[in-house]
């Protein structure tokens, strides 16, 4: 055995504190989180339908909550969660055919998922407010 010492430190395997998650990992987790958020979000749909089916003063009450700034914030987040999950779902369906799994392609689609969800969410709200104004 020779006494050769390493001149540089040997590389360690990636450690959690320095590991930069690839975008595909982030979107995978976000797909699950948005799925879970949409799950509980169905309560808002059920509540809103119940209010519309009920007496007017109760409908106005619920409308007031949905229309408040916090209500609008929640609904904005809800819109984004749905659109992100929808686009992510399309991504899954593409993968299911065996396409789009190559590393760089997958990263590009993941970025498209993130950017697309934000752009579409803003679009929905801008159009929504334009309709309301007009």
């Amino acid at each position, binding site marked *: 055995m020779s006494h050769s010492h390493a001149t540089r430190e040997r590389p360690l395997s990636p450690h959690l504190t320095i590991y930069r998650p690839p975008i595909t990992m982030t979107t995978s987790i976000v797909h*699950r989180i948005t*799925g*879970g958020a*949409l*799950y509980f979000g*169905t*309560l808002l*749909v*059920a509540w809103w*339908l*119940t209010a*519309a*089916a009920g007496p*007017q003063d109760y*409908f*106005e009450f619920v409308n007031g909550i949905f229309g408040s700034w916090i209500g609008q914030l929640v609904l904005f987040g809800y*819109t984004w969660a*749905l659109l992100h999950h*929808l686009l992510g*779902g*399309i991504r*899954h*369906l593409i993968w*299911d055919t065996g396409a789009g799994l190559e590393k760089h392609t997958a990263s590009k689609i993941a970025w498209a998922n993130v950017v697309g969800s934000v752009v579409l969410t803003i679009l*929905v709200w801008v*159009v*929504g*407010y334009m*309709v*309301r104004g007009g």
Partner: protein
Amino acid sequence: MADMRTPLKKVEGLGSARDGTIHFWRQRVTAIASIPLTLLFIGFLIAMNGAGYAEMRAALANPLVALLIALMLISALIHMRIGMQIIIEDYVHGDGGKLALLILNTFFTIIVGVVSLFALAKLAFGV
């Protein structure tokens, strides 16, 4: 290593849970159905933004609107119940807790569905 499965097991392809890939498949079918249905729903909400009580009720009583919302709900509820089951099975390992959450998952889905569909029916049939 020798394959321990019998020829019958292989032909059935059902695996140890005995229902094969039905959850996977249903998750995909409801995903596909949910794409146009949720997009239409978003479109409906945009169009109805700012509508008052009477206007909203009239729109929801329209058969086409009511049926499309009902279809969206059914598709999304089947889809989300399977999805939540997968999440529970991934993270909850104690048998008791897992069983309790799986049952709650079913209850939640059915209650949200029945309440929503009842509201739609009430609006449609106007009583």
